[in-house]
């Protein structure tokens, strides 16, 4: 993933600050799980870079946040309660999840290998096929014509 520098960004400085506050609210850092928040520098850069595809919708999410107290003297808990679950926030939430859960550190913490699925693939156990014995004992269930 590319690293976005300030002059490349779709958003001005104030907008970036606002977005960073919002994404950090959606997924904060965790000491318990030793994880960064979505406002981590690397993850946030990915979010800004990936926002191009849905710029209008992301701006709408940000504007809604500002209308409801983002950047004003409103507690994080109060702001969350105003914004969480609102349809206009969905595009930003989706973007945050997409970028957060492909970060190497987050994937490693989930015991995933930080790589694309192809070409190595994954292992899946066969399972216990003797469990079919009970089904076979019941016999035919399709209807004659």
């Amino acid at each position, binding site marked *: 993933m590319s690293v976005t520098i300030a002059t490349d960004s779709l958003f001005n400085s104030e907008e970036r600050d606002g977005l960073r506050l919002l994404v950090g609210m959606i997924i904060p850092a965790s000491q318990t799980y030793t994880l960064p928040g979505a406002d981590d520098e690397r993850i946030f850069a990915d979010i800004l870079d990936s926002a191009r595809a849905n710029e209008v919708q992301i701006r709408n999410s940000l504007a809604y946040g500002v209308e409801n107290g983002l950047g004003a003297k409103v507690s994080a808990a109060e702001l969350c309660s105003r914004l969480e679950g609102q349809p206009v926030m969905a595009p930003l939430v989706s973007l945050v999840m997409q970028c957060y*859960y492909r970060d190497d550190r987050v994937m490693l913490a989930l015991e995933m290998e930080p790589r694309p*699925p192809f*070409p190595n693939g994954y292992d*899946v156990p066969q399972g216990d096929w003797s469990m079919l014995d009970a089904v076979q004992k019941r016999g035919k269930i*399709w*209807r004659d014509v």
Partner: protein
Amino acid sequence: MTEDVDFSPADVLIIGAGASGATAAWNLAETKMRIVCLEQGGWTNPSDYPTTGRDWESRAQSDFSINPNRRQQPGDYPVNDDDSPIKIANFNGVGGGTVLYAGHYPRFHPSDFKVKSLDGVGDDWPLSYDDLEPFYAENDRITGVSGLAGDPAYPAKQSLMPPLPMGKSGQKLAEGFNQLGWHWWPSDSAIATQPYNGRDQCINLGACIYGCAQGAKASTDITYWPEAIRAGVELRTNCRVKAINVGDDGLASGVTYFDEEGVEQFQPAHVVIMACNGVGTPRILLNSVSDQFPDGLANSSGLVGKNLMLHPYASIQGVFADALDGYRGPHDSIWSQEFYETGEERDFVRGFTYETTRGRGAVATALTGVHSGRIPWGEGHHHAYRKLFNRIAGMVAICEDLPEEHNTVTLDPNLRDAHGIPAPKMTYSISDNSQKMLDFAVARASETLLAAGAEDLIIESPLAAGGWHLMGTARMGVNPQKSVVNEWGRSHDVKNLFVVDGSIFVTSAGVNPTRTIQTLALYITDQMKKRLTQLFD
């Protein structure tokens, strides 16, 4: 380039290079007729499939979305689905819907062809399971079907490769079915579990419905098309058909289409075969208006575009304490047809299949949790996420949809595609019978998941995104007043026009249609070959 294209008359012109178009092309190739296929999309390079990159889950929501209105690639056209609770899903390119399908590959049952006789609803097909059985077998051979012989829900059929692994998810769900004494069996899948016909076996990438980078999933761009092209079929991509032209004799004379440079062209042909799916085929027929066919081509019955069937789906997912397959493995695992045949004690007729689902990727887990209210913003996010990650498994119920004339594909009065061709509009409502079936399916699936140890259930019914089975809109039948094509796929009105895609379905069964679509394409083209000297009689 246009000057390299041979516009002399084709013996056979096929519109659409998807599941049925590829099959038809392959089967007719041995006649050595000049066969040309026009496909509005292009070839997809397997190295471009999302699973080759770290951003694969993002691409599943953008350029590889199953919804063309979201995907908006050059081969796509808009579909107005505002008046349908089930939204369109398709793929426009070589391989068609087989590029993005999960590879669930059940056959119809014998009873699926006799719905009217058995249950007093819908209509009977003008052919039977026994008529199609040899063609099912031939299609299985080309496609490469994995599964396990002996399924008590079906007449005897061979399996060419072992089944996909059950995995932890499938085994967990099998425990639930066994506790209740209900049927289950490994799914038939169009996914290679061993090297097959030059394709490698599945390596459990976990994202079948966004294209198989491994080539283990049988999409027709890698099964039928290579052989058809080697046998001399000409496939022109990025060519969108606008209309089928008709001569003074009332026969199709060829098609008008936009070539890859956007220039309008006319390709004459002696025979035209439509393979554009249950939305694309009526769209072209309704756009093909002439003095002889003022209501659209081949539409004297008035049934072109009517009887749209979509298979209402319900999704019932369980959250388990144990870690399951999660992001690993094909979507296919085991299925249950316990409630497939009509049960007289139930308050609906016909039935459904449960197809189990293994789990979902890391991003999809997060989105599922957020949208269902199980993962909050803020401090509780991480703990709540870990209760879901790799711990979701369940099933979808594929409900048989009955044909109803008020469910339609028409031409949208305002919406047009990039070439200015009127776009299709889907108008669809879920019937009482379907709603009762969905409710029943949700209740029984919930029982199964709880019996298997699920601690929480996530239910979506109907599944809004599930408009991937498009059927019924140019139905087959012997009566020209009650059908669009005859019992071997030829238009009643236009003797050199054939339809081979899911539009011809009389009823929908409660299973995925692709295996039967391809089987019918083999059957119809086989009939054409047998009748070559009297094809237009």
